[in-house]
């Protein structure tokens, strides 16, 4: 009985480690209560392109894809020539750029493909070639450790 309980405990710990929860201990080091990584990324239901945009991208690129200008700027996605090849936004989303964080470890391959298709076919953009999850997977490196 007792050994079973202890085995359960160990199993839980192992599961927690396997699901990436161990990373959160690093975020605690500076007093943050949560991690930059999303431990549920591989298990949660996939979001659609517009849902990903709304939850992850709109904070900076704005609802209309026009970006914003302050002391620095968030680039507009509307009429953005860098979107001509899908590989560019896939690379930037996976790895980050300047102040923009990496989304490797936060978004699923399917979600990155979906949001890239969304931004390339919205805000006045009309690219029709939709990338798929494999196009993302092939560009994905290891998730950076913080």
């Amino acid at each position, binding site marked *: 009985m007792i050994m079973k309980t202890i085995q359960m405990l160990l199993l839980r710990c192992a599961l927690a480690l396997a699901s990436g929860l161990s990373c959160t201990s690093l*975020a605690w080091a500076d007093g943050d209560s949560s991690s930059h990584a999303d431990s549920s990324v591989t298990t949660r239901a996939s979001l659609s392109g517009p849902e990903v945009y709304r939850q992850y991208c709109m*904070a900076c690129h704005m609802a209309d894809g026009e970006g914003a200008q302050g002391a*620095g700027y968030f680039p507009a996605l509307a009429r953005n020539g860098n979107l001509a090849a899908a590989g560019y936004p896939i690379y930037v989303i996976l790895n980050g750029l300047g102040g923009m964080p990496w989304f490797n470890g936060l978004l699923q391959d399917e979600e990155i493909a979906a949001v890239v298709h969304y931004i390339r076919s919205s805000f006045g953009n009309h690219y029709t070639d939709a990338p798929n999850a494999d196009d993302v997977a092939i560009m994905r490196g290891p998730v950076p450790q913080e």
Partner: protein
Amino acid sequence: MTDRTYLTRRQLLKAIGLTAGATAMYHAMTTLGHAGESPFSGPPVLSGAKPGTRVLILGAGLAGLLAAYELRKSGYDVEILEYQDRAGGRNWTLRRGDQYTELGGATQRVDFAEGNYFNPGPWRIPHHHRTVLHYCKALGVQLESFIQFNHNAYIHSTEAFGGKPQRWREVWSDLQGNLTELLAKALNEGQLDLPVGVEERDQLLQALQGWGLLDGEYRYRSSLQTALRRGYSHAPGGGQTAPPASGPLLDLNDLLHPSIWRGLNSQLVYNAQPTMFQPVGGMDQISKAFMRAMDGLPIRYNARVTHIAQDNRQVTVTYVPPQGGDATQVSADWCICTLPLPILGQLEFQASDAMLSAIRAIPYSSYTKIGLEFRRRFWEEDDAIYGGTSVTDQEIALISYPNDRFMSDGPAVLLAAYTTSTKDGLKLTGMTPEERIETALSQGEKIHPQYRKEFLSGVSVGWHRVPWQLGCRARWSDQARQTHYKALSDIDGRVVLAGDHVSYTPGWMEGAMQSALDSIHRLHQQASAA
């Protein structure tokens, strides 16, 4: 600590370092009580500055203000350029009448009662952040206790205890009690080997029993003994009132949910341990104190830097008004640049490739904070929570209660969300201010059902949308540290960077201030040698 002590100790350490090497010096430093904590060992002594040496500082946050303060004291001719119409940077407090316009154009007007405030940026000072504490004392910033951990505040998980918030003291006590009971059982049944170094089985059993509050049979049970730590269902009364009674224990299965021990750990990390401090009246008292101490400091507000050029004689910085207009140039012998990396990376900056690569390699975090004002202190009046923090696994992450003016009547403001995860921070930042407040209300009322009835107004800051920042704090990956940290902190020609992003404590005022001290120290050496 006086300068004299500092010099003596430093000279001593230097002598040890020269004769016996770094290991001996580190050992000596540890013995003297320095190396284990903050590296701060007193204000800098920058003697022998060449008269008339001009230093231009970009950014009037804490790093810029501290650099200006110390360089000025040492005889340098200092000037600051600042994008905003105020000094302080993220050392920032919002009060009644303040107005804040975020990127995207949404404007919030703060409508809190007189005396109430909200710190969108830093909100607490650990006792080991000696640089911040030193300057608070030196500049007369009055400090009071900041309470992080309150045993009577709540831990709330949507996935444990049926979503019902629990008091920290019960959770902590029962987790400790249950785990020690398990270990004691295993040990008693010969299923646990003694750890190396422990020779007496009884010694270990006794520790488990005592620390876990286990009974004579090594069981953790609801009793007046365990109630000493976890509290009572009926507290001890006087006279003929009810005698004390202990309540039911929490379920081990719930206690083991990751959100519970993660929440507990978040309250116990080094940077959150007591004693912590906050300035009386809001965090911006620190930057205001620097400004008071530098009465007459030349500072050009509303200056958006567009170019930083340099040659072997001087630095020339070009700036324009934030809303556009004529460019102005200003030159100096040296420049200390404290601009946030997302902004600096977009300027035309004449620097080495290594420096520019470093600047453009570090993303910023997506922290979001929401302050809510309520009609009354229901957390005190109804829940007996005086200061401290409740934690939840929802997007708001926590509720931090005011640590001042306990038991006062009238409206009070609490920190209703401090969202640090990238996922949740981006989601909240992408909302309108009204949607953010609705989120804080709908998630907060799961802990405090009084929320809706008592709510007055709120204000929110998603740091990616702060026009002068574009993100909250540098996120250093291990790889980026190895590749870029040295280049980012090196003096590049006549420019050196400073700020929390050039520290191992990003996102803390201590990091900004230590970086500033280190940068001016090295700049002074170089300027003196030139």
